[in-house]
């Protein structure tokens, strides 16, 4: 028992385990993670594929290869922290407890990571204007509007989903703007702005008078090229269809088409813009533990530095 205790509190063990985790994690970044086995079979030689599959290197961070050293590291940290505290209690002169806080903070962080791994859930969904979605058994949200703001150069500036929050059917928050970096926090769950989809439709009439409805991404042939519907844009206060002409894989031209204008044999009859928002609900019971660990870590590191400095000056 004494030998095991001495082994687990050893600084050398800490160094070896840290370097082992470092080396294995480094190798893991060279192997794409979480793909299907077919991906690895076609990409690597049979011997290397066998090694990756046997060691679980394709899912390294949930494999024994990672979890066993991390467990030893956590044990080492725990025993080392306890040993330091006990030693300080015996030798009352030793007052450097910064490293102890750092060690405990790391244990709290590992515990938070474990809770996140085991308990985190997420769900993606899309909403159109006026739609309601249940977020938890008690909370639901209703999408009032979705805005996609752009900079002058056309790059995205903000995606904003404005929602009413209802608790057991009763309005709790009115017109809350969910945007990237500004999630809606409810009890036990957060709602994030994750994505958006352009579900706009375009009604065309051809020269025979037949009407066709097209969506973003669809197109029609024009001699040796293809015109694709790319977006709906505002041009001089008028909504227009933005079309891109491709020859093979090469973009050769862009055209904005207003209602009643023609392109080839097609005339645009109507544009119906419809942007839908993509939201994500996340429940992560480990994050608050991680925040506590992070704060402890910051305090511990600061204290270690201050105590070292005081010792140096003394």
């Amino acid at each position, binding site marked *: 028992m004494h030998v095991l205790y001495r082994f687990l509190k050893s*600084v*050398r063990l*800490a*160094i070896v385990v*840290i*370097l082992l*985790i*470092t080396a294995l*994690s*480094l190798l*893991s*970044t060279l192997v794409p*993670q979480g793909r299907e086995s077919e991906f690895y079979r076609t990409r690597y030689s049979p011997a290397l594929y066998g090694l990756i599959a046997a060691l679980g290197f394709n899912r390294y*961070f949930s494999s024994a290869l990672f979890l066993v050293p991390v467990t030893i590291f956590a044990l080492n940290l725990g025993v080392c922290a306890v040993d330091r505290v006990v030693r300080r209690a015996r030798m009352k002169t030793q007052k450097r407890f910064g490293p102890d806080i750092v060690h405990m903070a790391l244990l709290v962080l590992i515990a938070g*990571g474990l809770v*996140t791994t085991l308990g*985190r859930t*997420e769900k993606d969904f899309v909403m159109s204007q006026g739609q309601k979605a249940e977020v938890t058994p008690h909370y639901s949200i209703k999408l009032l509007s979705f805005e996609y703001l752009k*900079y002058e*150069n056309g*790059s*995205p*500036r*903000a*995606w904003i989903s404005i929602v009413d929050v209802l608790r057991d059917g009763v309005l709790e928050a009115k017109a809350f703007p969910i*945007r*990237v*970096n*500004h*999630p809606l926090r409810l009890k036990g769950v*957060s709602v*994030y*702005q*994750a994505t958006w989809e352009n579900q706009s439709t375009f009604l065309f009439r051809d020269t025979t008078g037949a009407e066709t409805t097209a969506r973003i991404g669809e197109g029609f042939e024009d001699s040796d090229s293809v015109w694709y519907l790319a977006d709906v844009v505002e041009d001089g206060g008028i909504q227009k269809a933005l079309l891109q002409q491709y020859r093979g894989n090469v973009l050769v031209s862009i055209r904005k088409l207003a209602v009643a204008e023609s392109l080839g044999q097609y005339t645009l009859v109507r544009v119906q813009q419809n942007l839908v928002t993509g939201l*994500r609900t*996340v429940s*992560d019971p480990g*994050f608050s533990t*991680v*925040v506590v660990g*992070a704060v402890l*870590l*910051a305090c511990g*590191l*600061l204290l*270690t*530095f201050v105590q*070292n400095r005081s010792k140096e000056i003394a």
Partner: protein
Amino acid sequence: MAQAFATTALILIATAAALQIAFLMRKGQTADPVSQWMLLASSLLLLAVTVDRSVRISFPAVTNTYESLVFFSAVVCALAFVLRLVMKSAVTRFVLLGATIFALALLMISSSPLAPRHIQPPIPALQSLWLVLHVTFSFIGEAFFVVSLVSAIVQLVSRNVERKAEADRITYTSVAIGYPIFTAGALIFGAIWAEVAWGQWWSWDPKETWALITWLVYTAYLHTRLVRRLRGGGSAVLAIIGFAFTLFTFFGVNFLLSGLHSYG
């Protein structure tokens, strides 16, 4: 105007490096009297570039590779200036030269096609105070690692026992200061930003993994200080490896591995 500032800073840093080399090659122990002021001026000019771009995009300009390189170079120059003020030893002259050459290299990369300099306002994911803290603290921490790299090299190549001990002290002090700042920036603020932006504080993205690897190496470095046999050469080698990983986390992952950090 910002471009003129960056070019002037580059010329000043190059001149400072040339002066430092010239004084190191002389037999006397005196350091040149002006290069540290050139570094201070360069740092201020580069910070002015950052401020100018920040005003133009209405957000702290640390959101792409060019802006990161300019900020990193400014911090390294400022740190070299402070180092020269507080330390007067012979080792400091080598450390100062190393830091100056590193700042110069960063600026030269920022002028290359690897770092397009066109001004672009931040996309929604980058519009966060946590991102600003994440980037600035990471680079400030890494600036201290630059100092530790040079002093670790001096420690390994020097035959003079006193100089070795002095270099070892500088390496340890710079890691001891840089490590908590890097931890706060790269790991803590980065994780909080990721949670606020995407709802996932850690996703084992290659850049995150490499930042963790770098942090682990410096953690190992600090622990080698507690084992007598590993102190000295062994820990100096770890400080050098740690910095190599710092560089790979910044450049290598951006250009060789794909992931969430493709913008900077």
